[in-house]
């Protein structure tokens, strides 16, 4: 093979490698990004009058620094009874630059009668990376 062809092939190989790397972060064939949903185990919180004033939750991304992360939850009044009658107010905390960790202070309020003294929560994080949730 002559040198010109060799050079063409080298450039093409580099292009292909770069494209593969970019496609791995984006759904190929559609103009969108791969979104990951991470789920925590069910965690019990003491609730005064059905309110958890401050649950502290963190998400440690697998590899992406400063990644976007959104926190949501499912709430239960017992380990088995899920409720949809609640409000959730996550407040994201300022994080250190170049950090894998995102943190929130979260207020959860049960909004029906007979408020339980404990609320059980499964946390969800939607992000551009997978990771681990602690709460």
């Amino acid at each position: 093979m002559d040198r010109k062809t060799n050079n063409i092939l080298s450039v093409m190989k580099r292009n292909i490698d770069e494209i593969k790397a970019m496609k791995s972060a984006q759904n190929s064939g559609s103009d969108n990004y791969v979104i990951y949903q991470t789920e925590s185990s069910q965690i019990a919180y003491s609730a005064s009058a059905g309110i958890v004033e401050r649950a502290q939750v963190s998400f440690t991304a697998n590899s992406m620094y400063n990644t976007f992360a959104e926190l949501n939850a499912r709430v239960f009044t017992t380990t088995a009874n899920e409720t949809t009658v609640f409000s959730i107010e996550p407040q994201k905390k300022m994080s250190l630059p170049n950090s894998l960790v995102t943190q929130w202070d979260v207020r959860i309020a049960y909004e029906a009668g007979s408020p339980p003294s404990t609320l059980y929560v499964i946390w969800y994080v939607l992000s551009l990376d997978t990771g681990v949730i602690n709460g």
Partner: protein
Amino acid sequence: MDRKTNNILKDMKRNRQDIDTIQSSQFIGADSIIAYKTNSDEQFDHSITMSSSGQVINLLLTFTHQTATAGALLDLKLFYRINNPDVMAQPVPMWLPSMPAIYVRWYKVMPIGNGQVTQWRIRCVKNANSTTFTGYFKFFIDGTDTGQWSISVI
């Protein structure tokens, strides 16, 4: 043209198509991600009427993505106004010290089971009197996809 050159050209054409696909959603050479803002030009997008003391109406806002089939990162901004359809002229502020005539809270429904939609549950609670009020809502959805929404009472 010989076969080797033909193959090279075919590969280069495929690369070009891939690059065009990727560039359509991400600016190459700039560090930004394409994001979309979805909202209507209407004064309000939905209304409810409440009259009983302590009445509760739960709404489900379903946003069907235009493109994403495996989830999208979306943020809902919801504004509402009472007894006036021109919501954005004076929406109810979220920091009111006392409960307004209609009190609204919302959260995203989790987990995401169907990657083609994102849903929010909107909870509207009437205050403790029997005067009839109409709540008017405006929705603004920002995120990595655009789409269409629908509202149902649950």
